[in-house]
């Protein structure tokens, strides 16, 4: 019983951390703090993955999101002139409409989830054993091997595309003239 309450307290604190920092990521005035809030939210999602007995996906999430995406976003925020980041104010009517839409989405999808019988005690409990990492490794190199190769090609293409997009032709031309 004590363990039950402990697990629930852990779940609730991770949920508050994740949702709260997601709101911070969108609502804070300074974009750098928003990026840090997004990173903390991703850490919270990784915590959920740990609670769901999927440590491999949790580590992958931390590596990719906190290690790569958050750092990339923070660098972009620093590259973009800070003055451009502060001048943006949204329309209050639009914000009200957004909050109404948020509540409609929560109510609508929540009603669908509840009506689907997901809360049925026979189904909602985790009474099957967890999947171990060896299964994922085996699946990844056997059944999903072509997908893995395609994924590598996609990542390479996107990195090359991002580099090509961010290239500055004016500076290159100047350098050529100097040479």
């Amino acid at each position: 019983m004590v363990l039950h309450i402990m697990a629930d307290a852990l779940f609730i604190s991770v949920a508050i951390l994740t949702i709260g920092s997601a709101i911070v990521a969108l609502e804070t005035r300074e974009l750098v703090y928003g990026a840090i809030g997004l990173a903390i939210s991703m850490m919270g999602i990784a915590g959920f993955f740990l609670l769901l007995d999927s440590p491999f996906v949790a580590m992958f999430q931390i590596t990719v999101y906190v290690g790569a995406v958050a750092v990339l976003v923070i660098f972009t925020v620093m590259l973009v002139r800070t003055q451009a980041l502060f001048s943006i104010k949204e329309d209050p009517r639009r914000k009200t409409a957004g909050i109404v839409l948020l509540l409609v989405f929560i109510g609508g999808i929540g009603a669908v989830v509840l009506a689907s019988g997901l809360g049925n005690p026979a189904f909602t409990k985790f009474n099957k054993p967890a999947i171990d990492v060896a299964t994922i490794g085996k699946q990844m190199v056997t059944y999903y091997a072509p997908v893995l190769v395609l994924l590598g090609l996609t990542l390479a293409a996107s990195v090359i595309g991002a580099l090509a997009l961010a290239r500055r032709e004016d500076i290159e031309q100047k350098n050529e003239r100097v040479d």
Partner: protein
Amino acid sequence: MNELIDFVTVAVVLFAIGIYGLVVKRNAIRMIFSIEIIANAANLNLIAFSRNLHNAQGQMFALFSIAIAAAEVAVGLGIIIIAYRLYKEIDVEEFRSMKG
């Protein structure tokens, strides 16, 4: 212990927050944040159902989805840097023309 419905509830709330950000925010970087939040809500659902149904496919899908999201962020930020260079602004309402 925790139940499936708890995780699905958190995923629904995160999804709604992401939709709110996409609708309200005009800052392109914040729209990327919203897209990431939505993608993470989807991943949370995949993992939760994978745990409940004892099926490894959900975890595999989540892994691939995380990797694709990383690629998407790289390209998206590249596009934002280009747009900033052209318009000196990252407000999406200023990006009126698609021509270079």
